[in-house]
């Protein structure tokens, strides 16, 4: 049976650009077998595509005057009070301390269990209260000890068999030292938490339960986004550098 498809320039170009569905692409190929003129047309479109692509690699530079104008517009925008609420571009890979997150953790956050401002960690300060619902894991007294001494990036195995990874240190708007950490119980969920040093006690400000699902596959990271949102709206500065952190920890003891 004769192939009745008319080989228009548009069709040939779409073939050369890889924008034809398979069935139609096969028709063009079949027709081209016996048609040197068609072959040449295909070459014209593939060649121009390549030439244009090569030309496109060299973007004209943005003039300094424009770059400066735009950056001052963006600076003004960043100063707007409702700026954070406007942000609908949450990109986890660009998170401030993204490179400090244990890889397994990023894959495993499943449930936020909320802010626990009233609870104290471990044996320091005040009467030991019952751990609030959902925060039993944070009752491990060694958490507070480790938070007072371990450098960020370090990983400690506690007496309970749990692992405590200290992620970062930073100060809040009141210059209170806070530490973000990940507590992995020997069996059971991991907790990501931020605790701040208030009245000689480490107090968790937020805790998010994380668990590895049984298949070991990636769970939605929306809870990590919740943590990110909380961090970005809570007035914390950037993560402290190792020297500053060491200094602040020395004051804790």
């Amino acid at each position: 049976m004769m192939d009745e498809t008319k080989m228009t320039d548009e069709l040939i170009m779409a073939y050369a650009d890889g924008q034809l569905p398979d069935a139609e692409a096969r028709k063009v190929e079949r027709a081209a077998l016996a048609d040197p003129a068609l072959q040449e047309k295909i070459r014209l479109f593939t060649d121009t595509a390549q030439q244009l692509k090569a030309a496109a690699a060299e973007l004209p530079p943005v003039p300094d005057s424009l770059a400066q104008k735009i950056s001052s517009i963006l600076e003004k925008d960043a100063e707007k009070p409702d700026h954070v609420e406007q942000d609908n571009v949450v990109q986890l890979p660009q998170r401030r301390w993204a490179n400090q997150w244990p890889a397994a953790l990023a894959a495993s956050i499943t449930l936020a269990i909320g802010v626990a401002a009233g609870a104290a960690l471990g044996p320091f300060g005040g009467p030991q209260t019952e751990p609030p619902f959902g925060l039993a894991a944070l009752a491990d007294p060694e958490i507070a000890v480790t938070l007072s001494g371990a450098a960020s990036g370090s990983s400690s195995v506690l007496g309970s068999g749990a692992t405590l990874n200290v992620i970062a240190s930073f100060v809040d708007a009141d210059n209170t030292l806070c530490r973000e950490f990940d507590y992995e119980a020997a069996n059971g969920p991991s907790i990501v938490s931020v605790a701040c040093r208030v009245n000689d006690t480490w107090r968790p400000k937020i805790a998010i339960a994380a668990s590895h699902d049984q298949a070991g596959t990636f769970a939605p990271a929306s809870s990590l986004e919740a943590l990110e949102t909380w961090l970005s709206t809570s007035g914390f500065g950037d993560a402290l550098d190792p020297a500053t952190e060491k200094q602040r920890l020395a004051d804790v003891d």
Partner: protein
Amino acid sequence: MPDCFHTALTEKLPNLRRFALSLCRSAHVADDLVQITVERALVARKSFDPASRIEFWLFRILRNAWIDMVRKQKVRGQELDIHEAPDLGGEDSHRGETRLMVATVLAAVDQLPLEQREVVVLVCFEELSYAEAADILNIPKGTIMSRLSRARTAIASKTGIK
């Protein structure tokens, strides 16, 4: 804390400016268009779907800004200042043999009529699909294809690709 949206905008400035240049062929009008685009993008940022490609969204804003600008100029009875030398490729791109070919191709693009030029920039420079370009330019996909094939044929004859 760096704002991802701001970062994405800043990264796309060269692409926005190239598209703007292809529309208006005037460096200073192009700069105005890019600035308007950034300002409108900031105002409309809530309408941006983070799951989609930001350049796609930005190109549409820029093209609408261009249409507005042309309309306003017509109303005022003024002509846009398009007398500056158009420069789609930048000053430094004209050296060496490959550079020469690049310059030839860019010059050929520059001589295309506006309706073909904008399609070439979106599809061949920015690597959008025909359908995406049709969406930005608000014309049928078939029109994109006919304009683009005519443009490519013209470029081929100008650059000796044949």
